[in-house]
């Protein structure tokens, strides 16, 4: 994967005429991870949504380097938020294969990825039967069926058990080694937080 770099300076986000966060500055490049910390309402999700260009930027700059100019912005990026983007009436495997097709990934990877996510026994079940943790695993499995360098994760480990959280850590670790980069909002201490390529950003929210 080509080296990608993101530089953020003085970023301020305004939603509904209220400043959500102000003056956030950081930079991140391939192989690095950023953990966004902060109390509820500090603007972690809003920051991720700004980075994914769902939200407009009130002031500051957001510069991506090394992105493929042939691709549309967003095509080299995965965003996994609170909503699972999973259709309850489709089966687990159908849901995953759908996202693999949409994101230009590999539908033939679906069985392997489901095995890694420990959802292989539920592959043919309707997704409405899944528990909250299983839904989260399925949503995260989307990252693996279509490899992309930039991951934006909002609370990736919420609703997951210890084994699931370990799976996410492993997944992020491997992604960083392959030259991807991750920006994740989380309350939990990811085990890789001790690893040198991890930076932590504290968001305090608007004053």
């Amino acid at each position, binding site marked *: 994967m080509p080296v990608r770099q993101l530089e953020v300076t003085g970023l301020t986000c305004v939603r509904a005429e209220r400043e959500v966060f102000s003056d956030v500055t950081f930079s991140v490049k391939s192989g690095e991870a950023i953990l966004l910390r902060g109390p509820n309402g500090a603007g972690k999700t809003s920051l991720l949504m700004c980075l994914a260009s769902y939200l407009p930027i009130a002031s500051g700059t957001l510069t991506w380097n090394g992105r493929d100019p042939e691709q549309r912005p967003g095509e080299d990026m995965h965003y996994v938020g609170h909503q699972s983007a999973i259709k309850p009436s489709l089966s687990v495997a159908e849901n995953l294969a759908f996202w693999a097709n*949409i994101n230009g990934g590999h539908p033939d990877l679906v069985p392997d990825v489901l095995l890694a996510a420990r959802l292989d026994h539920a592959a043919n079940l309707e997704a409405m039967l899944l528990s909250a943790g299983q839904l989260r695993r399925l949503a995260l499995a989307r990252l693996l069926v279509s490899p992309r360098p930039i991951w934006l994760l909002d609370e990736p480990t919420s609703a997951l058990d210890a084994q699931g959280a370990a799976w996410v850590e492993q997944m992020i670790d491997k992604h960083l080694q392959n030259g991807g980069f991750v920006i994740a909002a989380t309350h939990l201490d990811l085990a890789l937080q001790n690893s040198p390529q991890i930076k932590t950003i504290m968001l305090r929210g608007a004053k």
Partner: protein
Amino acid sequence: MSAFFAILTRDIKLTARSFGDLLTLILFFVMIGVIVPFAIGPDKTLLARLAPGIVWIAAFLSSLLALDRLFRADMEDGSLLAFRHATISLETITFAKLIAHWLSSALPLIVATPVLAVMLNMDMTVFWRTIYSLILGTPALTAFGAVGAAITVSLRRGGLIAPVLILPLSVPILIFGVSAISANAGPNAETAAQLFLAGISIVSFVFAPFAAALALKLSQE
């Protein structure tokens, strides 16, 4: 499978699995054709004269009924956000969704039209013209409806506002749709109406994905 066909087949599959919704839609369409003869009274010639209008009103109202499910579910489960990262643009995705929506909400109505034809005492020529005008005109209803649904997708009670928005846009479709069935004005009036109907459908189906995708992008801010 390409992303375009993935959207198309997923949406059709989702409709097929919620068979109750589809049945409600068809029953609603047929019901209008069933109650109007009772309301008008046993006047066969009057009924036959009103038939084109009744069919089009039934098709229009039924298409409104199906409108809300076009984008709302995708909005609520976060699929719309995830579509921003697809290998195809949101406009293309919307186009695929429009085709799927027409196949799963307008085509069943056209298939159910024979029931209405019997209830409304249509003769064979009028029946075939009705089918023809529905095939030509319903894509425009779907297209305008999609724009309305996209604009109101972030509103909780958008299901009631969308029809008000698209009503004025749908008036030409109803006018030409009915005159494509019952042309009394001139020798080639029905052909002219059919051409107008096809024209409106093609133009609206081409432009609606852009308008709807723009509305969907703005709705997320």
